[in-house]
């Protein structure tokens, strides 16, 4: 029997958030955390609310805080997170809670929008496609795989304190994805929008983002590359 403590909050009926305990029968199986949530919803309380979609770590919908560490519920096995038969599930930290485990991602998306996450190239488009060499394409590895689950940004203290001004690890990983793209020509404009004291430089290298990324990406390294590009541009 697994003891699950779940963050509950319904703004229409609750004055304040509270933790609710459930005893879930897992049958000794090493389920994913999402399976446990599905069991709770089906067998204990149908009002438990969370986001989910692909259930295979591709869509990034079910980013949650499990026993203190952010991750995707659908690809986190109980054996990786449960300690002493107990599982505490909370919403991603730092973002406003809409209900139970569902958070308002507006601040996160606003930062993503700020870095202009699309290819910019005013030259006439070739007939078929803009070509890259295999080496140029390899520059995007470790960057394009981000699924925007927000596990990294919501584990970052700098993002907790300044979600309106610090772009955050997810946004900065994508910022570097376009800075590193040989087909993009807006490098100067992109860098000029990142040189203020907050957008990039609020990163203090804590590396919570690297620790929690469910796709094994390294935003801190990408931020280091952006710093180097800013330094090269200024000297």
């Amino acid at each position, binding site marked *: 029997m697994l003891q699950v403590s779940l963050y509950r909050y319904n703004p229409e009926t609750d004055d304040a958030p509270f933790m609710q305990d459930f005893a879930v029968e897992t049958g000794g199986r090493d389920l994913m955390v999402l399976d446990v949530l599905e069991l709770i919803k089906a067998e204990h309380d149908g009002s438990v609310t969370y986001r989910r979609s692909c259930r295979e770590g591709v869509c990034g919908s079910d980013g949650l805080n499990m026993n203190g560490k952010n991750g995707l519920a659908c690809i986190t096995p109980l054996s990786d997170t449960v300690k002493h038969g107990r599982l505490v599930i909370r919403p991603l930290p730092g973002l406003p809670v809409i209900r139970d485990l569902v958070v308002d991602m507006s601040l996160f998306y606003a930062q993503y929008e700020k870095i202009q996450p699309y290819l910019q190239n005013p030259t006439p488009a070739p007939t078929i496609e803009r070509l890259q060499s295999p080496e140029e394409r390899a520059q995007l590895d470790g960057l394009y795989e981000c699924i925007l689950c927000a596990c990294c940004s919501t584990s970052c203290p700098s993002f907790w304190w300044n979600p309106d001004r610090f772009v955050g690890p997810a946004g900065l990983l994508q910022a570097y994805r376009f800075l590193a793209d040989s087909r993009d020509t807006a490098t100067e404009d992109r860098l000029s929008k990142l040189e203020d004291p907050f957008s990039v*430089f609020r990163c203090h290298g804590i590396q919570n983002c690297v620790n929690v990324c469910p796709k094994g990406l390294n935003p801190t390294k990408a931020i280091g590359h952006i*710093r180097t590009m800013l330094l090269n541009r200024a000297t």
Partner: protein
Amino acid sequence: MATSIISLRRTGLSDWLIQRASALVLLTYFILIACQLLGSVDYISWRGLFDQTWMKIFTLLAALSLAAHAWIGLWSVTTDYLTERLLGPKGKSIRLLCQIGTSSALIGYVIWIIVIVWR
């Protein structure tokens, strides 16, 4: 277009560089002081060290580095924790008050060090 790294306009990059450069100056200075303290220290040798012009300049540089390093660090701390998001409408006044207090203290310390070392 290249931007000047030493322009008066304050950017995240200039802050970042100043923190690292000032940290190097402070590290070198305190290693020097530590080496001096590890040897035999008496008033005559200590006075002799600080009477030399290069040591006075180095001390002034270390004081300015300390002030710059502390200002950038504490400015970051105040803009992290003393904000309207965390403290409500009073956040801005509290932050400004702390920043004025911090900068006044740092300027005071630098002037004090100059008076001690250069008089």
